[in-house]
């Protein structure tokens, strides 16, 4: 990382750290949404941008993380960390199973399969009333206190407290993903995207690599969902809808899929855009669709990609 980037990053983290002192609860809530979508989109982009697999069903893991965390906090334990970790684990296990089938295919088939499995989770969320609450959603999820072994307990009732929890978890998770992406494993994934045959001839079992990438990707989507449940106190089937699956796609595209930070920038843009549009019209999806069309036809490198290109041009 270049020194300027590092300084900018530190500044950003400092701003995020003092944010609860500066802005109202509403903007804090928006920032929380950006953080969670960033996690979701970064996980998604490990498959899309790095491995070249477009998943249309990542909401399955997001929703599973949210539902499982909700159920654990309601029925098993009233402690935040086991709840969030437990929910993420369930989502990761689901990714392990669904991924097993999906990585057997690439391209169109992969997208179609992930979408179909995603909608399976969606229909379960609707129909398995006894567990999920059906179309009412899972309600009354407590924002459980953060308990640390040794007797310390922090209340999460105030949104600003919960914000710090989400911020720290998100930063740690991003650091983890950054390490993964820049490891030899991450390089193999990019190799698979560029030319899977050559990688296979090099003796690397590409299906297994794709599977591992799928599971990691599901882990991050699940974590994002797990963080959502205690914040909202409720989870509805919409969390598993394919429109939800498309959010990390658009966020990644907006920011740029071939850069690590792209999905984060894209998430911020996406949430701001959504908040602005829904204030003026109920036809958010119409605007969403048109924006997607415009990006696809004109700005496929995303904002971060366009900036890098611009810089490269300026240098010449």
């Amino acid at each position, binding site marked *: 990382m270049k020194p300027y980037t590092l300084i900018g990053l530190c500044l950003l983290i400092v701003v995020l750290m003092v944010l609860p002192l500066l802005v109202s609860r509403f903007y804090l809530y928006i920032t929380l949404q950006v953080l969670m979508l960033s996690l979701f989109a970064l996980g998604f982009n490990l498959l*899309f941008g790095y491995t070249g697999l*477009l998943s*249309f069903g990542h909401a399955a893991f997001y929703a599973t993380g949210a539902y499982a965390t909700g159920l654990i906090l309601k029925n098993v334990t009233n402690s935040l960390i086991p709840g969030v970790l437990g929910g993420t684990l369930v989502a990761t296990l689901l990714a392990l199973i669904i991924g097993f*089938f999906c990585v*057997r*295919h690439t*391209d*169109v*088939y992969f*997208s*179609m*399969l992930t*979408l*179909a*499995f995603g*909608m*399976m989770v969606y*229909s*379960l969320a609707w*129909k*398995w009333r006894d567990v999920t609450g059906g179309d009412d959603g899972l309600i009354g999820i407590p924002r459980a206190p953060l308990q640390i072994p040794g007797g310390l307990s922090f209340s999460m009732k105030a949104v600003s407290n919960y914000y710090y929890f989400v911020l720290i978890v998100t930063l740690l998770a991003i650091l983890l993903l950054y390490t993964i992406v820049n490891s030899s494993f991450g390089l193999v994934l990019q190799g698979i995207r560029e030319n899977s045959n050559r990688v296979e001839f090099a003796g690397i079992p590409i299906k297994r690599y794709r599977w591992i990438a799928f599971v990691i990707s599901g882990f991050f989507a699940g974590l994002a969902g797990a963080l959502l449940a205690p914040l909202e106190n409720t989870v509805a089937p919409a969390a598993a809808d*394919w*429109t939800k699956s*498309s959010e990390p*796609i658009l966020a990644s*595209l907006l920011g740029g899929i071939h850069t690590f930070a792209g999905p984060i920038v894209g998430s911020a843009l996406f949430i701001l855009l959504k908040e602005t549009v829904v204030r003026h019209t109920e*036809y*958010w*999806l*119409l605007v*969403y*669709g*048109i924006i*997607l*069309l415009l990006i*696809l*036809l004109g700005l*496929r490198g995303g904002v971060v990609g366009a900036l890098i290109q611009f810089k490269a041009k300026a240098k010449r």
Partner: protein
Amino acid sequence: MRTFLFQGLVGLSEAMYLWMVAAGLSLIFGVLRVLNFAHGSLYMLGAYLTFYFFGLLGHNFWLGLVIGPVFVAGIGLLMERFFLRLVYRLEVAYQLLLTFAFVLIFNDLVKLIWGPIYQAPPMPPGLDSSLSILGQAYPLYNLFIILVGPLIALGLWFLLEKTRWGRLIVASASDREMASALGVNVPRLYTWVFMLGAWLAALGGALSIPIRPVSPGMGEIIIIEAFIVAVIGGLGSLKGAFIGAILIGLLHVYGVFYVPVFEMALAFILMAVVLILRPWGLFGTREA
């Protein structure tokens, strides 16, 4: 046993709507190599527009049935000419996303134009009675649908195998460059095929309005089922789409009857089994 057979008849009529959507999806994929996520939306538009023309043209169901799907084919023309054509050369992911953008746009447009309410469907005169089959009342309309499905299959077979235009389609599907070099106007052919696929989906939607409520979410349900059919039958194979649709239709009805909560999961289990045993589908060609 009688109930079992009767449910099978119900499942067959359900399967025919699915077949019409899956046929269009498969045809478009087979020739254009584009998977159209918006195909369920075209089915939905077919239902809405037929319903609209039905009201506009003095409540004549058959007139609506003719005009509605043709109108949707026109929408297909615009989609292919002005949007899809721009992304053929790009990665598959971008093509998928482009069609997904249309899902979002069509969904909200339908709400914007007709409102979010469910529309009450009419039953065409002459087909609004029931027959007594296996000791139960079976709607005549369902029987009509069971006849229409195979007729469309027959029509498609005739079109693709016995007409010059159909042979050109098959030729372009197997080798685009060669067909182009031999003087086939491939871009125009693509437009026609997309329109035909859109028409098929819209016809399915139009035929569904007497027995299924017309609502904005109807396209999403059927496109997922059509994808499952495509995976099971083999994407790009019309025979696979037909058999797959019947399998899923039957599974759906028996599932609702015997294991209501996990009915949807049955189709996925079948899909998973096919994926393990024959990843390219029952009638598909093995991937290179």
